[in-house]
Protein backbone atom coordinates (compact mmCIF):
# COMPACT_ATOMS: atom_id res chain seq x y z
CA UNK A 1 0.00 0.00 0.00
CA UNK A 2 2.80 2.36 0.77
CA UNK A 3 4.30 1.74 -2.61
CA UNK A 4 1.01 2.59 -4.19
CA UNK A 5 0.99 5.81 -2.21
CA UNK A 6 4.42 6.57 -3.49
CA UNK A 7 3.26 6.00 -6.99
CA UNK A 8 0.38 8.37 -6.55
CA UNK A 9 2.61 10.90 -4.91
CA UNK A 10 5.05 10.80 -7.80
CA UNK A 11 2.21 11.13 -10.20
CA UNK A 12 0.78 14.15 -8.42
CA UNK A 13 4.08 15.92 -8.38
CA UNK A 14 4.72 15.34 -12.01
CA UNK A 15 1.21 16.22 -12.97
CA UNK A 16 1.33 19.58 -11.28
CA UNK A 17 4.57 20.38 -13.00
CA UNK A 18 3.36 19.37 -16.40
CA UNK A 19 0.11 21.23 -15.99
CA UNK A 20 2.07 24.32 -15.17
CA UNK A 21 4.33 23.97 -18.10
CA UNK A 22 1.54 23.39 -20.51
CA UNK A 23 -0.37 26.31 -19.22
CA UNK A 24 2.48 28.76 -19.18
CA UNK A 25 3.55 28.05 -22.68
CA UNK A 26 0.29 28.54 -24.44
CA UNK A 27 -2.62 30.89 -24.25
CA UNK A 28 -5.46 29.59 -22.22
CA UNK A 29 -7.70 27.35 -24.20
CA UNK A 30 -11.31 28.21 -23.87
CA UNK A 31 -12.78 25.16 -25.41
CA UNK A 32 -13.77 22.42 -23.05
CA UNK A 33 -12.41 19.79 -25.36
CA UNK A 34 -9.08 21.52 -25.53
CA UNK A 35 -8.90 21.77 -21.81
CA UNK A 36 -9.74 18.15 -21.47
CA UNK A 37 -7.07 17.22 -23.93
CA UNK A 38 -4.55 19.34 -22.11
CA UNK A 39 -5.42 17.71 -18.84
CA UNK A 40 -5.31 14.25 -20.27
CA UNK A 41 -2.08 14.91 -22.07
CA UNK A 42 -0.43 16.33 -19.03
CA UNK A 43 -1.57 13.47 -16.88
CA UNK A 44 -0.37 10.94 -19.42
CA UNK A 45 3.01 12.60 -19.56
CA UNK A 46 3.11 12.73 -15.80
CA UNK A 47 2.23 9.09 -15.51
CA UNK A 48 4.88 8.07 -17.95
CA UNK A 49 7.44 10.36 -16.40
CA UNK A 50 6.69 8.96 -13.00
CA UNK A 51 7.71 5.63 -14.36
CA UNK A 52 10.73 7.42 -15.76
CA UNK A 53 11.10 5.59 -18.95
CA UNK A 54 12.14 2.23 -17.69
CA UNK A 55 9.20 0.44 -19.14
CA UNK A 56 8.24 0.13 -22.74
CA UNK A 57 4.81 1.57 -22.28
CA UNK A 58 6.10 4.69 -20.59
CA UNK A 59 8.55 5.37 -23.36
CA UNK A 60 5.93 4.77 -26.00
CA UNK A 61 3.52 7.05 -24.19
CA UNK A 62 6.11 9.78 -24.01
CA UNK A 63 6.87 9.55 -27.68
CA UNK A 64 3.20 9.62 -28.53
CA UNK A 65 2.67 12.66 -26.34
CA UNK A 66 5.70 14.29 -27.82
CA UNK A 67 3.96 14.45 -31.14
CA UNK A 68 1.04 16.23 -29.62
CA UNK A 69 3.13 18.79 -27.81
CA UNK A 70 5.02 19.85 -30.87
CA UNK A 71 3.88 23.40 -30.37
CA UNK A 72 4.85 23.55 -26.77
CA UNK A 73 8.58 23.49 -26.43
CA UNK A 74 8.39 24.05 -22.73
CA UNK A 75 6.55 20.84 -22.17
CA UNK A 76 9.03 18.99 -24.25
CA UNK A 77 11.75 19.77 -21.77
CA UNK A 78 10.14 17.39 -19.41
CA UNK A 79 10.13 14.72 -22.00
CA UNK A 80 13.65 15.33 -23.14
CA UNK A 81 15.28 13.26 -20.50
CA UNK A 82 13.10 10.29 -21.12
CA UNK A 83 13.11 10.75 -24.85
CA UNK A 84 16.80 10.26 -25.06
CA UNK A 85 16.14 6.72 -24.22
CA UNK A 86 13.49 6.28 -26.80
CA UNK A 87 14.01 4.03 -29.65
CA UNK A 88 13.04 5.38 -33.00
CA UNK A 89 10.94 2.37 -33.54
CA UNK A 90 8.34 3.90 -31.31
CA UNK A 91 7.87 6.86 -33.55
CA UNK A 92 7.79 5.07 -36.81
CA UNK A 93 5.70 2.14 -35.81
CA UNK A 94 2.85 1.37 -38.06
CA UNK A 95 0.27 -0.91 -36.73
CA UNK A 96 -0.47 -3.83 -38.86
CA UNK A 97 -4.22 -3.93 -39.19
CA UNK A 98 -4.30 -6.98 -41.33
CA UNK A 99 -3.39 -9.60 -38.82
CA UNK A 100 -5.31 -12.77 -38.95
CA UNK A 101 -5.44 -14.30 -35.54
CA UNK A 102 -5.31 -18.02 -35.63
CA UNK A 103 -6.78 -18.61 -32.25
CA UNK A 104 -8.64 -16.75 -29.56
CA UNK A 105 -5.59 -16.24 -27.45
CA UNK A 106 -3.57 -14.84 -30.28
CA UNK A 107 -6.35 -12.51 -31.26
CA UNK A 108 -6.68 -11.21 -27.77
CA UNK A 109 -2.98 -10.78 -27.41
CA UNK A 110 -3.00 -8.62 -30.47
CA UNK A 111 -5.82 -6.60 -29.01
CA UNK A 112 -3.97 -6.18 -25.78
CA UNK A 113 -0.94 -5.07 -27.68
CA UNK A 114 -2.99 -2.39 -29.30
CA UNK A 115 -4.23 -1.16 -25.96
CA UNK A 116 -1.01 -0.96 -24.08
CA UNK A 117 1.18 1.80 -25.50
CA UNK A 118 4.19 0.32 -27.13
CA UNK A 119 2.73 -3.10 -26.89
CA UNK A 120 3.22 -3.88 -30.54
CA UNK A 121 6.92 -3.70 -30.09
CA UNK A 122 6.98 -6.50 -27.63
CA UNK A 123 7.64 -9.81 -29.23
CA UNK A 124 7.70 -11.87 -26.10
CA UNK A 125 4.30 -12.61 -24.69
CA UNK A 126 5.95 -12.93 -21.32
CA UNK A 127 7.08 -9.33 -21.36
CA UNK A 128 3.78 -8.15 -22.68
CA UNK A 129 1.98 -9.38 -19.64
CA UNK A 130 4.58 -7.86 -17.40
CA UNK A 131 4.16 -4.53 -19.11
CA UNK A 132 0.42 -4.81 -18.85
CA UNK A 133 0.64 -5.40 -15.13
CA UNK A 134 2.73 -2.33 -14.68
CA UNK A 135 0.55 -0.25 -16.93
CA UNK A 136 -2.60 -1.28 -15.12
CA UNK A 137 -1.08 -0.23 -11.85
CA UNK A 138 -0.21 3.19 -13.09
CA UNK A 139 -3.51 3.63 -14.84
CA UNK A 140 -5.23 2.81 -11.64
CA UNK A 141 -3.13 5.37 -9.78
CA UNK A 142 -4.00 7.98 -12.35
CA UNK A 143 -7.68 7.21 -12.08
CA UNK A 144 -7.61 7.38 -8.30
CA UNK A 145 -5.85 10.71 -8.24
CA UNK A 146 -8.09 12.26 -10.83
CA UNK A 147 -11.15 10.97 -9.09
CA UNK A 148 -10.05 12.52 -5.83
CA UNK A 149 -9.28 15.82 -7.46
CA UNK A 150 -12.59 15.83 -9.23
CA UNK A 151 -14.42 15.03 -6.04
CA UNK A 152 -12.60 17.75 -4.18
CA UNK A 153 -13.38 20.16 -6.92
CA UNK A 154 -17.04 19.42 -6.79
CA UNK A 155 -17.10 19.71 -3.04
CA UNK A 156 -15.33 23.03 -2.99
CA UNK A 157 -17.53 24.17 -5.80
CA UNK A 158 -20.51 23.47 -3.62
CA UNK A 159 -18.94 25.22 -0.70
CA UNK A 160 -18.30 28.41 -2.59
CA UNK A 161 -21.79 28.32 -3.94
CA UNK A 162 -23.13 28.09 -0.44
CA UNK A 163 -21.07 30.96 0.75
CA UNK A 164 -22.32 33.34 -1.88
Amino acid sequence: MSTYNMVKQEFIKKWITTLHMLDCSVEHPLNVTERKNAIKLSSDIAMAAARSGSTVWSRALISRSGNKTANKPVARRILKKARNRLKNRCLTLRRNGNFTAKSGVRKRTELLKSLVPGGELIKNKDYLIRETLDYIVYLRAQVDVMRTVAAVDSVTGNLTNDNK
Partner: protein
Amino acid sequence: MNGAIEADLLLDYNTDMSVLERQRAHLKYLNPGFDSPLAGFFSDSSMINGGVIDGFLGTDGLNLPMIYGQTTVEGDPRLSISPETMIGTGNFKKRKFDTETKDCDGKKKKILMMNREDEVEEEDEKSKLTEQNNGSTKSIKKMKNKAKKEENSYSNDSSKVTIQKTDYIHVRARRGQATDSHSIAERVRREKISERMKFLQDLVPGCDKITGKAGMLDEIINYVQSLQRQIEFLSMKLAVVNPRPDFDMDDIFAKEVASTPMTVVPSPEMVNSGYSHEMVNSGYSNEMVSSGYLHFNPMQQVDTTSSDPLSSCFNNGQAPSMWDSHVQNLYGSLGV
Protein backbone atom coordinates in the same frame (compact mmCIF):
# COMPACT_ATOMS: atom_id res chain seq x y z
CA MET B 1 -2.00 -14.25 -1.15
CA ASN B 2 1.21 -15.56 0.21
CA GLY B 3 -0.78 -18.04 2.20
CA ALA B 4 -2.76 -18.92 -0.85
CA ILE B 5 0.27 -19.63 -2.93
CA GLU B 6 1.89 -21.62 -0.22
CA ALA B 7 -1.30 -23.50 0.28
CA ASP B 8 -1.38 -24.29 -3.38
CA LEU B 9 2.05 -25.71 -3.16
CA LEU B 10 1.25 -27.74 -0.17
CA LEU B 11 -2.15 -29.07 -0.87
CA ASP B 12 -1.64 -30.14 -4.40
CA TYR B 13 0.73 -32.94 -3.88
CA ASN B 14 -0.18 -34.61 -7.06
CA THR B 15 1.10 -31.90 -9.29
CA ASP B 16 4.70 -31.52 -9.92
CA MET B 17 6.56 -28.66 -8.57
CA SER B 18 7.12 -26.46 -11.50
CA VAL B 19 10.51 -25.59 -12.69
CA LEU B 20 9.70 -21.97 -12.23
CA GLU B 21 8.78 -22.44 -8.64
CA ARG B 22 12.08 -24.03 -8.03
CA GLN B 23 13.85 -21.07 -9.46
CA ARG B 24 11.85 -18.74 -7.39
CA ALA B 25 12.52 -20.61 -4.28
CA HIS B 26 16.17 -20.23 -5.01
CA LEU B 27 15.90 -16.55 -5.43
CA LYS B 28 13.93 -16.32 -2.28
CA TYR B 29 16.55 -18.22 -0.45
CA LEU B 30 19.29 -16.06 -1.74
CA ASN B 31 17.61 -12.80 -1.07
CA PRO B 32 16.28 -12.81 2.40
CA GLY B 33 14.93 -9.77 3.97
CA PHE B 34 12.68 -8.48 1.31
CA ASP B 35 9.37 -7.34 2.44
CA SER B 36 6.68 -9.50 1.19
CA PRO B 37 5.27 -7.55 -1.70
CA LEU B 38 1.99 -9.27 -1.75
CA ALA B 39 1.14 -9.30 1.90
CA GLY B 40 0.12 -5.72 2.16
CA PHE B 41 -0.86 -5.65 -1.43
CA PHE B 42 -3.73 -7.96 -1.40
CA SER B 43 -4.83 -7.42 2.10
CA ASP B 44 -5.35 -3.79 1.36
CA SER B 45 -6.96 -4.61 -1.92
CA SER B 46 -4.80 -2.06 -3.54
CA MET B 47 -3.25 -2.41 -6.83
CA ILE B 48 0.41 -2.03 -6.50
CA ASN B 49 3.17 -3.69 -4.84
CA GLY B 50 6.78 -3.02 -4.51
CA GLY B 51 9.34 -5.62 -4.84
CA VAL B 52 12.79 -6.45 -5.80
CA ILE B 53 14.26 -4.62 -8.63
CA ASP B 54 14.37 -6.81 -11.58
CA GLY B 55 16.37 -4.52 -13.73
CA PHE B 56 13.68 -4.49 -16.28
CA LEU B 57 11.24 -2.40 -14.38
CA GLY B 58 13.71 0.09 -13.12
CA THR B 59 14.13 1.59 -9.75
CA ASP B 60 10.83 3.11 -9.02
CA GLY B 61 9.98 0.57 -6.46
CA LEU B 62 7.43 -1.18 -8.53
CA ASN B 63 8.84 -4.41 -9.66
CA LEU B 64 6.20 -6.81 -10.54
CA PRO B 65 8.20 -9.79 -11.65
CA MET B 66 9.59 -10.20 -8.23
CA ILE B 67 6.19 -10.24 -6.74
CA TYR B 68 6.39 -13.90 -6.71
CA GLY B 69 9.68 -13.82 -4.97
CA GLN B 70 7.59 -13.09 -2.05
CA THR B 71 8.20 -13.95 1.45
CA THR B 72 11.41 -13.83 3.25
CA VAL B 73 12.98 -17.12 3.77
CA GLU B 74 13.13 -18.83 7.02
CA GLY B 75 16.46 -17.34 7.83
CA ASP B 76 14.53 -14.26 8.78
CA PRO B 77 13.50 -14.32 12.39
CA ARG B 78 10.88 -11.68 11.91
CA LEU B 79 8.53 -13.91 10.15
CA SER B 80 6.33 -16.17 12.09
CA ILE B 81 5.89 -18.59 9.32
CA SER B 82 4.22 -21.79 10.17
CA PRO B 83 6.13 -24.90 9.34
CA GLU B 84 3.68 -25.59 6.56
CA THR B 85 4.37 -22.35 4.84
CA MET B 86 8.03 -22.72 5.34
CA ILE B 87 7.92 -25.85 3.39
CA GLY B 88 6.81 -24.07 0.31
CA THR B 89 9.80 -21.85 0.44
CA GLY B 90 12.17 -24.22 1.86
CA ASN B 91 12.38 -26.85 -0.74
CA PHE B 92 15.79 -25.98 -1.79
CA LYS B 93 17.40 -25.17 1.40
CA LYS B 94 20.41 -27.12 2.05
CA ARG B 95 19.64 -29.87 4.39
CA LYS B 96 21.99 -31.79 6.38
CA PHE B 97 22.53 -34.91 4.43
CA ASP B 98 21.95 -37.19 7.33
CA THR B 99 18.51 -35.80 7.94
CA GLU B 100 17.34 -36.75 4.54
CA THR B 101 17.55 -40.41 4.94
CA LYS B 102 14.71 -40.78 7.35
CA ASP B 103 11.24 -41.92 6.47
CA CYS B 104 11.26 -41.88 2.73
CA ASP B 105 9.43 -44.33 0.68
CA GLY B 106 11.17 -46.31 -1.95
CA LYS B 107 10.64 -43.84 -4.71
CA LYS B 108 12.11 -40.97 -2.86
CA LYS B 109 15.18 -42.83 -1.86
CA LYS B 110 16.08 -43.21 -5.46
CA ILE B 111 16.31 -39.51 -5.98
CA LEU B 112 17.85 -38.64 -2.70
CA MET B 113 21.37 -38.86 -3.85
CA MET B 114 20.75 -37.02 -7.03
CA ASN B 115 18.84 -34.27 -5.34
CA ARG B 116 21.48 -33.71 -2.79
CA GLU B 117 23.86 -32.79 -5.50
CA ASP B 118 21.18 -30.74 -7.11
CA GLU B 119 20.69 -28.62 -4.10
CA VAL B 120 24.33 -27.87 -3.85
CA GLU B 121 24.36 -26.65 -7.38
CA GLU B 122 21.15 -24.82 -7.39
CA GLU B 123 22.16 -21.94 -5.24
CA ASP B 124 22.56 -19.15 -7.69
CA GLU B 125 20.79 -16.15 -8.99
CA LYS B 126 20.95 -16.36 -12.73
CA SER B 127 18.00 -17.54 -14.66
CA LYS B 128 19.79 -19.22 -17.47
CA LEU B 129 18.88 -22.83 -17.48
CA THR B 130 20.72 -25.91 -18.14
CA GLU B 131 19.41 -29.39 -17.78
CA GLN B 132 20.87 -32.49 -16.50
CA ASN B 133 20.09 -35.64 -18.25
CA ASN B 134 20.76 -37.97 -15.44
CA GLY B 135 17.42 -39.56 -15.96
CA SER B 136 14.05 -38.45 -14.99
CA THR B 137 13.32 -37.89 -11.38
CA LYS B 138 10.36 -37.50 -9.19
CA SER B 139 9.20 -34.03 -8.54
CA ILE B 140 10.51 -32.08 -5.65
CA LYS B 141 7.10 -32.36 -4.12
CA LYS B 142 8.03 -35.70 -2.74
CA MET B 143 10.96 -34.12 -1.10
CA LYS B 144 8.60 -31.77 0.55
CA ASN B 145 6.70 -34.58 2.08
CA LYS B 146 9.65 -35.74 3.96
CA ALA B 147 10.83 -32.23 4.52
CA LYS B 148 7.77 -31.68 6.58
CA LYS B 149 9.14 -33.93 9.22
CA GLU B 150 12.42 -32.13 9.32
CA GLU B 151 11.18 -28.64 9.72
CA ASN B 152 13.18 -28.04 12.83
CA SER B 153 16.40 -28.61 11.07
CA TYR B 154 15.64 -26.09 8.39
CA SER B 155 16.79 -22.94 9.99
CA ASN B 156 19.83 -24.61 11.34
CA ASP B 157 20.77 -25.97 8.01
CA SER B 158 20.21 -22.88 5.98
CA SER B 159 22.50 -20.92 8.15
CA LYS B 160 25.29 -23.36 7.69
CA VAL B 161 25.06 -23.54 3.96
CA THR B 162 27.67 -22.08 1.76
CA ILE B 163 26.41 -20.81 -1.49
CA GLN B 164 28.11 -21.93 -4.58
CA LYS B 165 28.14 -19.30 -7.20
CA THR B 166 27.49 -21.05 -10.40
CA ASP B 167 26.30 -19.35 -13.46
CA TYR B 168 23.18 -21.25 -14.09
CA ILE B 169 20.43 -23.11 -12.44
CA HIS B 170 20.50 -26.81 -12.91
CA VAL B 171 17.07 -28.00 -13.66
CA ARG B 172 15.94 -31.46 -13.08
CA ALA B 173 13.76 -32.83 -15.78
CA ARG B 174 10.54 -34.23 -14.56
CA ARG B 175 9.47 -37.80 -14.85
CA GLY B 176 7.80 -38.61 -18.11
CA GLN B 177 8.62 -35.34 -19.79
CA ALA B 178 11.01 -34.35 -22.48
CA THR B 179 14.43 -33.57 -21.32
CA ASP B 180 16.08 -31.63 -24.04
CA SER B 181 17.05 -28.09 -23.36
CA HIS B 182 14.58 -26.47 -25.63
CA SER B 183 11.56 -28.01 -24.12
CA ILE B 184 12.72 -27.26 -20.64
CA ALA B 185 13.29 -23.64 -21.50
CA GLU B 186 9.95 -23.62 -23.19
CA ARG B 187 8.34 -25.08 -20.16
CA VAL B 188 9.87 -22.45 -17.95
CA ARG B 189 8.61 -19.79 -20.26
CA ARG B 190 5.14 -21.20 -20.20
CA GLU B 191 5.21 -21.43 -16.45
CA LYS B 192 6.32 -17.84 -16.19
CA ILE B 193 3.47 -16.77 -18.35
CA SER B 194 0.97 -18.71 -16.35
CA GLU B 195 2.44 -17.31 -13.18
CA ARG B 196 1.99 -13.81 -14.41
CA MET B 197 -1.48 -14.60 -15.53
CA LYS B 198 -2.18 -15.59 -12.00
CA PHE B 199 -0.99 -12.27 -10.74
CA LEU B 200 -2.97 -10.45 -13.32
CA GLN B 201 -5.87 -12.42 -12.08
CA ASP B 202 -5.41 -10.92 -8.67
CA LEU B 203 -4.91 -7.50 -10.09
CA VAL B 204 -7.92 -7.40 -12.30
CA PRO B 205 -11.02 -7.60 -10.19
CA GLY B 206 -13.51 -10.32 -10.79
CA CYS B 207 -11.15 -12.66 -12.49
CA ASP B 208 -11.13 -15.49 -10.03
CA LYS B 209 -13.59 -17.75 -11.71
CA ILE B 210 -12.12 -17.59 -15.12
CA THR B 211 -9.61 -20.10 -16.22
CA GLY B 212 -7.90 -20.30 -19.51
CA LYS B 213 -5.78 -17.74 -21.16
CA ALA B 214 -8.33 -16.43 -23.60
CA GLY B 215 -10.92 -15.58 -20.99
CA MET B 216 -8.43 -13.94 -18.73
CA LEU B 217 -6.96 -11.93 -21.52
CA ASP B 218 -10.48 -10.80 -22.24
CA GLU B 219 -10.90 -9.58 -18.71
CA ILE B 220 -7.60 -7.83 -18.77
CA ILE B 221 -8.44 -6.11 -21.99
CA ASN B 222 -11.77 -5.02 -20.63
CA TYR B 223 -10.16 -3.68 -17.51
CA VAL B 224 -7.52 -1.72 -19.35
CA GLN B 225 -10.13 -0.30 -21.66
CA SER B 226 -12.38 0.66 -18.79
CA LEU B 227 -9.52 2.36 -16.97
CA GLN B 228 -8.64 4.31 -20.05
CA ARG B 229 -12.21 5.35 -20.53
CA GLN B 230 -12.40 6.40 -16.90
CA ILE B 231 -9.39 8.60 -17.41
CA GLU B 232 -11.01 10.21 -20.41
CA PHE B 233 -14.15 10.85 -18.49
CA LEU B 234 -12.38 12.20 -15.44
CA SER B 235 -10.21 14.51 -17.44
CA MET B 236 -13.29 15.84 -19.17
CA LYS B 237 -14.91 16.34 -15.82
CA LEU B 238 -11.91 18.20 -14.52
CA ALA B 239 -11.83 20.33 -17.60
CA VAL B 240 -15.44 21.30 -17.11
CA VAL B 241 -15.07 22.21 -13.50
CA ASN B 242 -11.98 24.30 -13.82
CA PRO B 243 -11.71 27.49 -15.80
CA ARG B 244 -8.05 26.86 -16.54
CA PRO B 245 -6.17 23.63 -16.96
CA ASP B 246 -3.68 24.40 -14.30
CA PHE B 247 -6.27 25.43 -11.81
CA ASP B 248 -6.86 21.87 -10.80
CA MET B 249 -4.67 22.13 -7.82
CA ASP B 250 -4.73 25.87 -7.51
CA ASP B 251 -8.39 26.17 -6.90
CA ILE B 252 -8.44 23.45 -4.36
CA PHE B 253 -5.61 24.84 -2.39
CA ALA B 254 -6.69 28.41 -2.76
CA LYS B 255 -10.09 27.75 -1.33
CA GLU B 256 -8.79 25.63 1.42
CA VAL B 257 -5.89 27.81 2.35
CA ALA B 258 -7.82 31.02 2.30
CA SER B 259 -10.43 29.73 4.63
CA THR B 260 -8.16 28.70 7.44
CA PRO B 261 -5.20 30.24 9.16
CA MET B 262 -1.84 28.97 8.14
CA THR B 263 0.41 27.19 10.46
CA VAL B 264 4.01 26.29 10.45
CA VAL B 265 5.49 23.87 8.06
CA PRO B 266 4.33 20.56 9.33
CA SER B 267 6.75 18.11 10.70
CA PRO B 268 6.01 14.48 10.20
CA GLU B 269 4.85 14.15 13.75
CA MET B 270 2.39 16.93 13.32
CA VAL B 271 0.89 15.40 10.29
CA ASN B 272 0.85 12.05 11.89
CA SER B 273 -0.95 13.31 14.92
CA GLY B 274 -4.06 14.18 13.07
CA TYR B 275 -5.55 15.39 9.90
CA SER B 276 -6.66 18.76 11.02
CA HIS B 277 -7.44 21.42 8.54
CA GLU B 278 -4.46 23.61 9.09
CA MET B 279 -1.93 20.87 8.97
CA VAL B 280 -3.27 19.51 5.80
CA ASN B 281 -3.40 22.91 4.30
CA SER B 282 0.09 23.81 5.18
CA GLY B 283 1.15 20.45 3.90
CA TYR B 284 -0.40 21.21 0.62
CA SER B 285 0.97 24.66 0.62
CA ASN B 286 4.35 23.11 0.63
CA GLU B 287 3.29 21.21 -2.36
CA MET B 288 2.24 24.47 -3.90
CA VAL B 289 5.63 25.90 -3.25
CA SER B 290 7.18 22.97 -4.90
CA SER B 291 5.04 23.53 -7.91
CA GLY B 292 5.99 27.14 -8.13
CA TYR B 293 3.07 29.05 -6.81
CA LEU B 294 4.39 32.06 -5.02
CA HIS B 295 1.28 33.79 -3.89
CA PHE B 296 0.97 31.51 -0.93
CA ASN B 297 4.37 32.45 0.35
CA PRO B 298 3.38 34.80 3.13
CA MET B 299 1.26 32.08 4.57
CA GLN B 300 3.91 29.60 5.29
CA GLN B 301 7.57 29.14 5.57
CA VAL B 302 8.91 28.62 2.16
CA ASP B 303 10.69 25.41 2.00
CA THR B 304 12.92 25.20 -0.98
CA THR B 305 13.65 21.59 -0.41
CA SER B 306 10.12 20.95 -1.32
CA SER B 307 10.40 17.28 -1.89
CA ASP B 308 11.09 16.59 1.74
CA PRO B 309 8.05 18.18 3.31
CA LEU B 310 6.02 16.80 0.51
CA SER B 311 7.15 13.35 1.23
CA SER B 312 6.79 13.91 4.92
CA CYS B 313 3.23 14.87 4.39
CA PHE B 314 2.53 11.87 2.32
CA ASN B 315 4.47 9.22 4.06
CA ASN B 316 2.08 8.55 6.81
CA GLY B 317 0.52 5.34 7.77
CA GLN B 318 -2.67 6.56 6.29
CA ALA B 319 -5.44 4.11 6.45
CA PRO B 320 -7.46 3.33 3.39
CA SER B 321 -10.43 4.75 5.18
CA MET B 322 -9.32 8.19 4.12
CA TRP B 323 -11.47 7.99 1.08
CA ASP B 324 -14.42 9.74 2.55
CA SER B 325 -16.44 12.48 1.08
CA HIS B 326 -15.35 14.60 3.99
CA VAL B 327 -13.39 17.54 2.70
CA GLN B 328 -10.57 17.21 5.13
CA ASN B 329 -10.21 13.57 4.45
CA LEU B 330 -10.23 14.23 0.77
CA TYR B 331 -7.37 16.61 1.08
CA GLY B 332 -5.48 14.22 3.22
CA SER B 333 -6.16 11.40 0.90
CA LEU B 334 -4.96 13.41 -2.03
CA GLY B 335 -1.56 12.52 -0.81
CA VAL B 336 -2.39 8.94 -0.19
